[in-house]
């Protein structure tokens, strides 16, 4: 394999992982926009999606299992909002963030005891472990195309939803000015529930498509939440589409680090670059000061 195609291979693996970080980061942003809270349980939605889908495949066909898992996790997301965030609205944002950390721990432990500590995975959506598609001299697994395609569709779908549908516009209104939205007759509390459900469902979908490549494991949520948070900050907190760029950047940085640095230092490079970017561009690549301040008051 020549140098160029090797680089392409690394790039593609980076983009694949990065697209998952992007989905987690979008989830962060959806909830941040609606409530001002950073939901550190975001990674657990991805884990739950994968786990549920793997279990469901024992009973139903793959597409039904994936759909079922996504729907179930969406409900879990809504339930979390109804159970914890709605009654505790008067708590400070800082406390709510810590509650999400607690939720993440509890969900992870529940998954450990519901399933077990084994690593599992969904079957490849098309082909198998060894089948590959030749593209520009690099060999890529068809599952990579599935991941990229699904994530791209989800992102475009979300964009269309937020921009053009009534519900989506109501959601954006809530994030830009909750009081005005309330006066316009929007049920802001339900919009918050919807944003939790949406970001949980998106996370679960990502968890399903990535499962054949990276496997699903009860502990996979926390590292994903960390990378997703990094991607969200890098893209500018509160900007869902910035999160896509942020996620892809974190993934590619990681892939470059894997190819250039001794093993074990890959996170170091990714986070060092992230810190440098933040110190130069404090509000991320596409973030704005105004969006942050609107949320903090």
């Amino acid at each position, binding site marked *: 394999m020549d140098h160029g195609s090797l680089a392409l291979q690394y790039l593609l693996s980076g983009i694949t992982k990065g697209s998952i970080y992007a989905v987690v980061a979008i989830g962060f942003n959806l909830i941040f926009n609606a409530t001002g809270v950073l939901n550190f349980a975001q990674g657990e939605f991805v884990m739950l999606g994968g786990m549920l889908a793997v279990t469901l495949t024992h009973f139903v066909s793959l597409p039904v299992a994936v759909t079922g898992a996504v729907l179930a996790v969406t409900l879990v997301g809504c339930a979390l909002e109804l159970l914890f965030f709605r009654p*505790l609205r008067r708590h400070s944002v800082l406390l709510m963030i810590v509650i999400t950390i607690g939720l993440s721990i509890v969900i992870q432990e529940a998954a450990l*005891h519901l399933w077990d500590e084994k690593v599992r995975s969904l079957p490849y959506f098309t082909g198998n472990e060894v089948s590959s598609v030749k593209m520009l001299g690099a060999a890529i697994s068809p599952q990579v195309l599935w991941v990229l395609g699904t994530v791209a569709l989800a992102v475009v779908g979300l964009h269309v939803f937020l921009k053009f549908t009534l519900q989506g516009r109501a959601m954006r209104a809530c994030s830009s000015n909750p009081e005005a939205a309330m006066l316009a007759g929007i049920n802001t509390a339900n919009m918050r529930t919807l944003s939790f459900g949406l970001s949980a469902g998106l996370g679960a979908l990502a968890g399903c498509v990535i499962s054949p490549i990276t496997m699903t494991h009860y502990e996979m949520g926390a590292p994903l939440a960390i990378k997703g948070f990094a991607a969200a900050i890098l893209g500018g907190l509160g900007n869902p589409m910035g999160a896509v760029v942020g996620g892809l950047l974190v993934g590619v940085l990681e892939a470059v680090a894997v190819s250039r640095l001794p093993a074990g230092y890959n996170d170091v490079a990714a*986070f060092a670059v*992230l810190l440098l970017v933040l110190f130069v561009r404090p509000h991320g690549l596409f973030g704005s000061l105004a969006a942050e301040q609107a949320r903090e008051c």
Partner: protein
Amino acid sequence: MATLRHLLGGAATTGGQAQFLGRPWGAAALRVLAFVAVMAAVQLAFCAAGKAYCLTQLTMAIYYAVAVIGVALVMGCAGQVSLGHGAFFAVGGYTSALLTTCDLSAFQQAAWAAWLQSCRVLVVRPDLYGGQVMSVSPWAAFVAAMLLTLVVACVIGYPSLRLRGHYLAMATLGFGLIVHKIILGSALLGAADGITGVPAWRLGAGLALTGKAPDRVANYYLACGLVLLLLVVLGNLVRSRVGRALQAIHDRELAAAVMGVNTAVYKLKAFVFSALLAAMAGVFLTHYSGGIGPSEAGVLKSVRYVALAAAGGMANFWGVAAVSIVINYFSLRGWFGSYDQAVFGALLILIISLTPEGPLQPLGAWLRSLASRWFAKREAAHGPA
């Protein structure tokens, strides 16, 4: 109870406030008394029950509480989350462990070594096998650890604290991950095994910071004393000009800035001070347990500190100390077995949902109403004193 009040100096009630030596009883004095009483009672109870070995985990939990109080300072006063205090703990612990265990005997003849030895920076001590090793004295290592933490905390805190929002969380999270990976990747720091064989720290007056059984009770009181001192100092700090400035920053940063508070400087100072507390906890615990491992720097530890600080009530440092000592003690004793993490998460959610100000707040309010009712009843019965 009445005799106690007499002993403490002609207790009179003015406006429902108890008096102590003619002055109003500070809530602080009451808390100090309660703390000393509880800690002494726990020690006596454990020793009487023949379970003195439990004091070891309790001492460790108290040292961890020092780090948690550090996090609470950043969260409660500067209103920011630090997800890197595990790393500061490790910076302190590893610096001290590395300096006190490295063998510099090879340089014994060198002039600089002799000079440093005369300054008591380097000490010669017998090692486990009866040989002689020359290494840095724990005092000098402590100073070095503090200086290193000071520099690192300034480098991390300076850019991120000038920003608003959750950037400190991100910066410290990245910093923590990097420190963890560096420790795991470097042979000098023992990689995955960590550093063991850290010598006892002779503090003088027959007191040695070590986990050995004969020194157990003394070390327990040493740790208690450290936390008590810290709580009193922080209590005074909060009521000082600095504390009021920090409170203003926490409540409304813009307003504080308009009133002439240099918000960036205050936030940086609070952050650096809290990092120093975490590092100090690291140094003490490393000497106490005789070693340190890479898990101390892990993100999980940092998250745990943040969680405990939030559960304790953040700016309510006494509550933070209490919650963190109790929960960490049960974890260290392995009470919850394989459910440890699950119980921790559930407790965390429960405590924060029910008592957002920390569990000591409602307890204190209840005790205060009880006391004032009791005094009122006495006054009604006996007339004013």
